[in-house]
């Protein structure tokens, strides 16, 4: 699959967590709860923000509705969504490595 990653990246914090929570199909409220747990309470996604994220991500083809029951829509990550998430995580890993190296250098500088 040929994806123009610059169209989707970087993901916002909320978008990243929505995609990351969808390693299994889930409906909206389950995503909100899972994100809060995954992020150790650092990220709470309100229903207004989440509903907007569903609309955008579905339009972009990163997620898809897999079922609807009792007015609750269940979403799953698409193949494209997985690739975008993977590329985002790859870039984050580079950022983390650079950040850690910079901090180590600063500590060493202070000790000298």
């Amino acid at each position: 699959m040929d994806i123009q990653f610059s169209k989707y990246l970087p993901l916002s914090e909320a978008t990243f967590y929505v995609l990351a929570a969808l390693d299994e199909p889930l409906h909206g409220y389950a995503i909100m709860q899972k994100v809060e747990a995954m992020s150790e309470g650092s990220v709470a996604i309100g229903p207004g923000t989440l509903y907007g994220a569903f609309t955008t991500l579905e339009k972009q083809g990163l997620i898809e509705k897999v079922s609807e029951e009792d007015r609750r829509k269940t979403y799953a990550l698409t193949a494209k969504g997985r690739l975008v998430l993977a590329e985002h995580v790859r870039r984050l890993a580079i950022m983390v490595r650079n950040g850690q190296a910079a901090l180590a250098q600063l500590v060493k500088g202070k000790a000298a």
Partner: protein
Amino acid sequence: MSGNTVRIYKWFWADQDLEQEQWLREKAAQGLHLKRPAYACGWTFTRGAAADVAYRIDYRGMRDAAYTRLFEDAGWEHAGESAGWHYWRKKAVNGVAEEIFTDNASKIGKYRRVLAMLAVAIMPLTVILAVSDASRFMVSVSKPTMVLMAAIIPLLYVMYTYAALRLFRRIRSLREAGA
């Protein structure tokens, strides 16, 4: 609890959702709970026990069942709708009011939807004014009607423009604040 209703007239611009939310919370603290949001500036409240209730406003136009369900699952009660504006409320816990929009990008998205609605709402009148022969129309109506229209139509455009400018200003300040 008495079931009497109270009507209060108050005007808000389209970008003043935060002011409305604060005002509704203050009303709830006085025991006035929103029954029907602004209809031609008239707000209807039900008198009841004072409570710390958070109000949050979204602009959605028509709401679908999944939208409503998501908010209800998250503990929000639909307090009313007015011209596409949806009023949600939830009891504040220890004085803390939850948000329905948790990042600036989604707040900006809401104001963009409001701007689009304003543009669509003013469109029919604009088209009529553009295609109609104003001079011929004006002589066909009575003088009081003519004076009234000459006053109301420009005022309408001034208000729409002012509302849109306020929304643009709000979007810009959110954008400057970052995601």
